[in-house]
């Protein structure tokens, strides 16, 4: 075996072994020490991160990629399912990023969850999630990808419902599972189509054998799967509801890693997508709609975690738009940069929430720039990166996407929506910073504010460095796989920046209105649409259960039970016969006088006739 591929294979196997070992050790009957989470789990992830840098450096130095098929799992005469791992550009770059972000989040979680009696189990769940995510990312066949896909879904359910005594948390966990299940239908359909038509689930064979097929249906299935997992419009309400889980869960699953799995699937399947115009247009329009709708919903939210959740959904919509532009590597770049600053935003939110005695409403925060300077500074850095401030991490990916959108020969509606959503991103980001960091405190003075903790500062610091330099490092090391168009007029080039600045100025103006007693006239309720999340949960969460229950009542109860089995069957006999019986018996009642009269008449007639 060539030394390069040997080193890469060994690194990957060692990473998996390091991650699986703590999980296996929990199956032994020995009780774990209270600091097992920090000593074993966090250490294994830290080590895995440093080991994962080796294949990354080999790839950057030599461009080496490997596909490792190690175990024949289920093989029939013409259909093989093997354990095969693909270490190409996407998985080689994403794995260290996922491990770095997870390392930071686990260190933060050791501070955030220190009062939780089941912290060890919490860390175990996070570790199982990470293993599933890496299985998904490194999968070279659809079956393995499906294993990872379902694994992350299940762990999401368990982690959202961590505080299972809370009804809202249980509802949110169920919501996540149900919406993801709808998406899974698409994935399973695509897998079934591939198995029957292409006779394989291995990605290389799928790409080669699908050249002469019309791939619209399986691609729409994959898009449905991405819609469910990546919270696109229509299957998006689970993501803000998932904020019921602890903040480390929101930071890891619902911002950086799990929710990008849908986009990652489409990036992996991009050779199939690139020749199908219907699928590309679907991605473009769905992504544009998602990014604007969720950015609109984020404008009027008051829960700091919900704002970040909608922001995540909006960025996922932007990634979907990029897929629709046939630029999967740009979508992947945005996945990587987004992981850093979004995780950092969540960690800062968690630090602030804990410092203010579990207060999550931004209207009850304020002045934290003086009280928690480090946290609020990193919140500002993360928000600036999110808005695409030049030369931070988000700029390299977001600006590239918007430039590609501006210079492509595609519909202007998607472009308009995306630019509007970019503006809204600036608005809600500034709103968060304004209400949280600026101004005067709007909370009680007896809050346990203390950010002077190594476990809190170090992870946020690491992610802050990532948010600043990750974009530069990634774009400098990765050559684009599609030639970017660098020629455009200054207005197009600066379009993203202009709309962001307009949004910031607008937000500053609107936010400053809150400190003045200013009655707006006319008194319009324009914010209702945004505040009620577009009325989407109100309509859908009531409508379809009501329809189902009504249909259930109508068909099962009224139609079958009451009508066919009662009214038409046995009771019909009664119904028809009873009036006849009643009429007959009624007609023969109360006639005794008539009978006597007839009797007398008959006797009289008989006597008269015999007498004559």
């Amino acid at each position, binding site marked *: 075996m060539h030394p390069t591929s040997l080193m890469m294979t060994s690194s990957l196997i060692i990473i998996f072994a390091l991650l699986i070992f703590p999980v296996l050790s929990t199956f032994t009957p020995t009780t774990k020490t209270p600091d097992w989470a920090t000593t074993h789990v966090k250490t294994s992830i830290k080590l895995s991160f440093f080991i994962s840098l080796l294949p990354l450096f080999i790839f950057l130095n030599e461009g080496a990629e490997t596909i490792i098929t190690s175990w024949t799992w289920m093989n029939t005469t013409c259909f093989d399912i093997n354990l095969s791992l693909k270490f190409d550009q996407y998985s080689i770059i994403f794995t260290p990023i996922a491990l770095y972000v997870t390392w930071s989040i686990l260190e933060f979680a050791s501070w955030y969850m220190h009062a939780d009696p089941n912290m060890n189990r919490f860390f175990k769940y996070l570790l199982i999630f990470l293993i599933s995510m890496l299985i998904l990312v490194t999968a070279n066949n659809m079956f393995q990808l499906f294993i990872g896909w379902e694994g992350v879904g299940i762990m999401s359910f368990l982690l959202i419902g961590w505080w299972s005594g809370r009804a809202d948390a249980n509802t949110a966990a169920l919501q996540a599972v149900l919406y993801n299940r709808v998406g899974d239908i698409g994935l399973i359909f695509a897998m079934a189509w591939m198995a029957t038509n292409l006779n394989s689930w291995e990605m290389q064979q799928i790409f080669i054998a699908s050249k002469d097929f019309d791939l619209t249906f399986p691609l729409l299935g994959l898009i449905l799967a991405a819609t469910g997992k990546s919270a696109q419009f229509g299957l998006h309400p689970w993501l803000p509801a998932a904020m019921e889980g602890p903040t480390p869960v929101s930071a890891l699953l619902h911002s950086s890693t799990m929710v990008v799995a849908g986009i990652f699937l489409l990036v992996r399947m991009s050779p199939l997508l690139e020749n199908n115009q219907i699928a590309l247009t679907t991605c473009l329009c769905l992504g544009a709609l998602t990014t604007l709708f969720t950015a609109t919903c984020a404008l009027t939210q008051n829960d700091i975690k919900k704002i970040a959740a909608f922001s995540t959904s909006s960025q996922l919509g932007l990634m979907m738009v990029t897929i629709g532009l046939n630029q999967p590597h740009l979508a992947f770049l945005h996945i990587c940069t987004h992981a850093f600053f979004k995780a950092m935003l969540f960690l800062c939110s968690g630090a602030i929430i804990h410092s203010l005695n579990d207060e999550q409403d931004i209207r009850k925060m304020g002045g934290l720039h003086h009280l928690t300077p480090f946290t609020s500074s990193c919140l500002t850095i993360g928000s600036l990166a999110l808005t695409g401030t030049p030369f931070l991490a988000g700029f390299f990916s977001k600006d590239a996407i918007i430039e590609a959108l501006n210079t492509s020969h595609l519909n202007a509606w998607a472009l308009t929506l995306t630019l509007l959503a970019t503006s809204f991103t600036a608005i809600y980001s500034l709103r968060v910073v304004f209400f949280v960091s600026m101004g005067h405190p709007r909370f009680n003075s007896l809050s346990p504010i203390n950010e002077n903790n190594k476990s809190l500062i170090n992870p946020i610091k690491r992610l802050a460095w990532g948010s600043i330099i990750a974009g530069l490092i990634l774009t*400098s090391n990765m050559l684009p796989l*599609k030639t970017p168009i*660098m020629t455009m007029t200054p*207005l197009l080039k600066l379009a993203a920046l202009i709309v962001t600045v307009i949004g910031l100025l607008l937000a500053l103006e609107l936010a400053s209105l809150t400190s003045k007693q200013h009655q707006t006239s006319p008194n319009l309720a324009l914010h209702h649409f945004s505040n009620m999340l577009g009325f989407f949960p109100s309509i859908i969460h009531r409508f379809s259960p009501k329809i189902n229950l009504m249909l259930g009542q109508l068909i099962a109860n009224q139609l079958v039970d009451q009508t066919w089995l009662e009214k038409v069957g046995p009771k019909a006999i009664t119904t028809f016969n009873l009036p006849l019986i009643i009429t007959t018996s009624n007609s023969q009642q109360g006639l005794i006088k008539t009978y006597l009269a007839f009797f007398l008449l008959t006797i009289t007639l008989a006597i008269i006739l015999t007498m004559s």
Partner: protein
Amino acid sequence: MFSKHYVIGNNTSGTFVIWPYGRCFPEGPPGCLFPVKGGSGIKGFVESLNIVAAMGAHLARRYVTESDTEPDPKRKYEFDPQFGFPERNEREMVASQEQMNLAQLPLEQRDYCAQHLLKLMKCKRDNWPNFLSCQHERHDWDSCEHQDYVMRMKEYERERRLQLRKKRVENQAEAA
């Protein structure tokens, strides 16, 4: 921001020249249909702002005013590339098929600037971990792609003007 990478570019003498709104580069292709005059310095910048303010004229032209003569960039052009030129050579690729196969270039990147990309890829591989190097090769590739874009714009504008000319000739023939 106003470097030579953009459509409102500058030629070697440092003057601002505006394209494609009725003017050509001084060193433009032979057979250029309009004479050359460009603004310089501040005047050119102000003129370019006026053009920026009037952006969208191409959309009005495409869909409203000249929808019958605007060429469709996705379809093959009607006019022969040699029409109007005494001699015009076909472009030749510098990078060979074999070189591009060895570098495993994706199909979309196998264009007339592939030789610069191959040099860039080699430079990146040789200079790693110094990821800030290879700026010169990167610029060469970007510049080549920019010139390629400008050439495509010019071909489009040539086709558009020839269509307008054809319509003018037909109208004159009908009037006569």
